[in-house]
């Protein structure tokens, strides 16, 4: 067998291992009813987001009726203070919340993993410095820091994503660091180093695949936090007013005095959407954690 063939065979074995692991994961996951509910909720929202132009009866950004119309057959959830259809705005809001949730959490775990890997693998002084910075970010008050950053950067979706990423990478970094530190001492990474692999190769081949499951579980919680953070920032008026995110709809509801005037149709639906979507991801994260986190497996 040539070296090439051997490498190819190794590749194939690796593929089967991954496939089996994935199947095992799915088998365990299917048993969790919370996990299934979560998956159904999230997939429904993804469908709504993709099909928004066909579901929404009106253009969410233009004035389609008198202001403050009550719910009727023409406007299921009435209209807002400038006469935009609230139902259409809530439908389109799904897009922004999902987009920000997914992008911000991906960036969060990417940044967190990078810092965690560097810190855990290199150790020593680099680790010390990085962990001090992590401590600082963990300790500093989250929301005020977000507000300050948001006001420095200005309004806009990309800025909200940056703010969320910069504030929330710490949890992933800590977790990846401790995993990396323990993986670094295992025989297979030592063997990899012993045969002369570069650090980069060892990290990419032996450490990353082993940390990935936990990072994935962490990513689900990062999505939850990102969606809630976007809603909060937009509600307080730091979102992009030209976009119809759920938090933005609630921001306009608050300006219109929806609570003290009893416009329940303006307040309840966007909040329920945030809650359901977050719950969907929280359920998925909860069940994934039960499977992937060895500490939580049935005792």
């Amino acid at each position: 067998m040539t070296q090439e063939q051997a490498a190819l065979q190794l590749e194939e074995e690796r593929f089967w291992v991954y496939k089996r692991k994935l199947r095992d994961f799915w088998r365990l996951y299917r048993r969790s009813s919370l996990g299934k509910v979560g998956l159904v909720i999230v997939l429904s929202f993804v469908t709504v987001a993709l099909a928004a132009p066909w579901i929404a009866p009106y253009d969410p950004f233009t004035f389609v009726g008198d202001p403050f119309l009550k719910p009727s057959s023409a406007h299921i959830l009435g209209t807002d203070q400038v006469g935009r259809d609230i139902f259409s705005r809530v439908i389109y809001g799904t897009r922004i919340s999902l987009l920000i949730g997914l992008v911000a959490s991906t960036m969060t775990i990417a940044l967190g993993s990078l810092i965690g890997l560097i810190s855990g693998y290199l150790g020593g002084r680099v680790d010390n410095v990085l962990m001090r910075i992590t401590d600082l970010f963990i300790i500093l008050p989250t929301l005020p820091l977000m507000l300050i950053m948001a006001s420095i950067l200005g309004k806009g979706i990309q800025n909200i994503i940056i703010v969320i990423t910069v504030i929330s990478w710490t949890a992933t970094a800590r977790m990846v660091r401790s995993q990396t530190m323990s993986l670094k001492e295992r025989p297979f990474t030592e063997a990899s180093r012993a045969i002369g692999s570069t650090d980069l190769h060892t990290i990419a081949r032996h450490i990353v695949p082993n940390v990935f499951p936990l990072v994935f579980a962490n990513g689900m919680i990062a999505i939850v936090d990102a969606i809630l953070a976007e809603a909060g920032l937009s509600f307080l008026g730091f979102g992009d007013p030209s976009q119809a995110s759920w938090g933005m709809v609630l921001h306009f509801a608050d300006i219109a005095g929806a609570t003290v005037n009893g416009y329940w149709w303006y307040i309840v639906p966007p909040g329920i959407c945030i809650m359901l979507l977050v719950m969907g991801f929280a359920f998925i994260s909860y069940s994934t954690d039960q499977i992937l986190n060895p500490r939580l497996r049935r005792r």
Partner: protein
Amino acid sequence: MRDYLIKRGASALVTLALAIILTFFLFRIMPGDPTRTVVGDFRVTPEVRQMLVHQFGLDQPIWVQFVLYIRNLFMGNLGVSFQYRGTPVTSIIFGRRLFNTFILMGSSIGVALIIGIIVGTVAAWKRESRFDISTVVFSLVTYSMPVFWLGMLIILVFGYYLGAIPIAGTMTVGMTYSNVFEYAADYLHHMTGPFVTLTLSFVGFYFLIMRDSILDVFTEDYMLTAKAKGLGDRKILFRHAMRNATLPMVSLLAVEVTYLFGGATMTETVFSWYGIGRLIYEAVVMADYPVLQGIFVVMAVAVITANFCADIVYAFLDPRIRY
């Protein structure tokens, strides 16, 4: 123990120094002229401005400014507010607002903590029972609600429809009180809405952590010992498991000190609660940077101190962790 104290103390001081450096530079990367963000606001009179330029060395190089900033900090001088036309930041923070925030946050965190610990213990004991599953689902649901929306719902239902709670503020405007009890009653009545909102928003998180912690304790050898000694379920649960599982809550509580000093911006804004949380929001909107910087420093000092105390308490409660 002494080494441990010194090590923890040193690391707390380093974090504190980093936090102070960060706040100094954070408010100097604000767009525009750096001196503007510190004093050059049109809402401040020229005389006060002159005094501040001198006090904070704003006509001097940045490292001199930094030294003066630190010096002023140690003397308790955090500069003056823009939106309140030159009122010292310290007197804005340490006053009525901090009191209101302390009362609101202290009571809601306290109640949520007690409920979380007790219910978490029972749920873990009856793992996978109907009680356990329903409490887990309940906590995930409350965790999923944006706190400002929960507040809006409470105002809508209990304020608008039922008329049971006031919708804003800390007391009835224009009301005169014949004695202190009447005042307290009115105050507490106004606090109901934000209190319930915050308690609900905290309790799920505490519950999940406590439940997890108890499940962890159940795997310890001393639980088996307790069972082998023939102790009753109740005694094992509350005497042995709960006491040990409450330990992680100590360090959690240290982090929650941020709320005690910083308030809850969302809830305080929704209910127009006259506290620090709303002050943060107003300061951001009004670009009142000195106030923001002041709150930030106060919060950082409080949290870092609390964490240090938690480390010490932890070491006393659990001798195993003195490394």
